[in-house]
């Protein structure tokens, strides 16, 4: 079972994503901020991270660079309320992005694609 780490400072989003992704057959762990996120990834070894871009104390795009530098091939999906983030070049280090919605069809599709991406090691 693939393990997904959801990083979002809004509790209702964490709850929604957790419930729906568990129902879809994933194991879900959550974090409410970017605090010690890299250590958390190191310890919990998720297969994929869903990362909020705008958190009160953390910029998701900066966290994305840190994740990519340390965990080169770990899939990261950016989750955002607005798509203006695309103006920032940092966003191209993400595997995919989704605009936040109560309908998680798109998120689930991107998660499936990211998890089945295959490169020889």
């Amino acid at each position, binding site marked *: 079972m693939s393990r997904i780490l959801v990083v979002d400072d809004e509790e209702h989003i964490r709850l929604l994503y957790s419930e729906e992704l568990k129902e879809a057959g994933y194991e879900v762990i959550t974090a409410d901020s970017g605090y010690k996120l890299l250590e958390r990834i190191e310890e919990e070894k998720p297969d994929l991270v869903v990362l909020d871009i705008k958190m009160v104390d953390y910029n998701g795009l900066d966290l994305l660079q840190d994740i990519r*530098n340390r965990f*080169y091939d770990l899939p990261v999906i950016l989750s955002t309320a607005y798509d203006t983030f695309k*103006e920032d070049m940092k966003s191209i*280090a993400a*595997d995919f992005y989704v605009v936040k919605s109560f309908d998680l069809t798109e998120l689930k599709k991107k998660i499936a694609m990211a998890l089945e991406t*295959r490169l020889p090691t």
Partner: protein
Amino acid sequence: MPFYEENPKDIKQADLVVAVPSYNEAESIGHTVEQCSKGIKQHFSYLSSVLINCDNHSTDKTRDTFFSAPVDVPRIYLSTQPGEIGKGSNLRNLFVKARDLQAKVVVVIEADIKNVSPHWIRNLAEPVLKGAGYVCPLYLRHKYEATLTSSLVYPLMRCLYGRRVRQPNVGDFGFTGRLLDSFLDSPLWTESVRMYGVDIWMTTVALNSRLPICQAVMGAPKIHRMKDPYAHLSVMFQQVVRTIFDQMSIYSNFWLQVKWSKPTSLFGTDSHEMETPLPVEVNVSQLHERFLQGFETYSGIWERVYDQTICPKIQEIRGLGLQHFSFPTQTWAKILFDTAKAYQSLGEGERVSLLDSLLPLYLGKVLSFVKKTERMSLQQAEEYIENECTVFEENKPYLAKIWE
């Protein structure tokens, strides 16, 4: 070994090698070397470093200008034998020398860049010191600059090797000394690689090395000496596409396993303000005319090479006229896949004709891109290209099927 070498300071080891390949670049190499030297001094003064000019035996005092530029980094001049031209030949001499010097990091900067600046050296070298194997720059480009990359090289390379390297054949790079053996031992060293094909050849070798790839945000366009973009189009097109197709055969065990694609790491996202890319004018009537001319000469080849669904589709595109012109990406992807497959079984003469026959279709695809994106911002056009790449990836099973 290089045909000719001058190493006045008798340098035997260097952690950082910054190389400038050239052929008759006396006018510009002095400035480039000065900027490279400043970059080394400002950012890597703690490393042993050397500047190398790898030259095609220029006859215009490139060598003299290289040595007389006011810089205080040791210099080495390498040259091919007279008459042997091509950037690839120069880089091969560089690889041999850099390996002798036990270089940890190698940076290549083209000689004729007008706006090269010291931080470019940092952006291409530092990611390697932090663990990247190969660094491609991300220059700011107008949406109609480098259409061969946007319409063909990037989507095809990304779909094949699964890594999203946006400017894989841009001409400037940073890489680890660990790749030197891979470059020197690569089984493919063709005429195309010795010439325009070398940039995409290096990136492909790096992608297959499994080392981490990084893209360095340069924050600026790359401004060359003024060139006519169509002057060498046919030759450049042949050499670049041929190199990709040749390497597809060598690396098929790798790319047949690849599904979808992944991003690279980035460097330099915070360091500089973004400049604006220079405008590029496109002559859509000329593109359309050259697309239509292809039917007179190449219809026979197309019918022999392409899947039976493709030729009716191309005829349909022809019938649209300039005003409603549109070239579907799925058709374009299948054309490239069929061409790549056909290329493998042809002799030399037929390969030239095959690639010549692809050129008008490529120009048709560029025309379609221009028409679709004419009202789009740079960022919107980039998103359009990303979507085209996804179409290539979705159609990869077709390529795998015809390949096997």
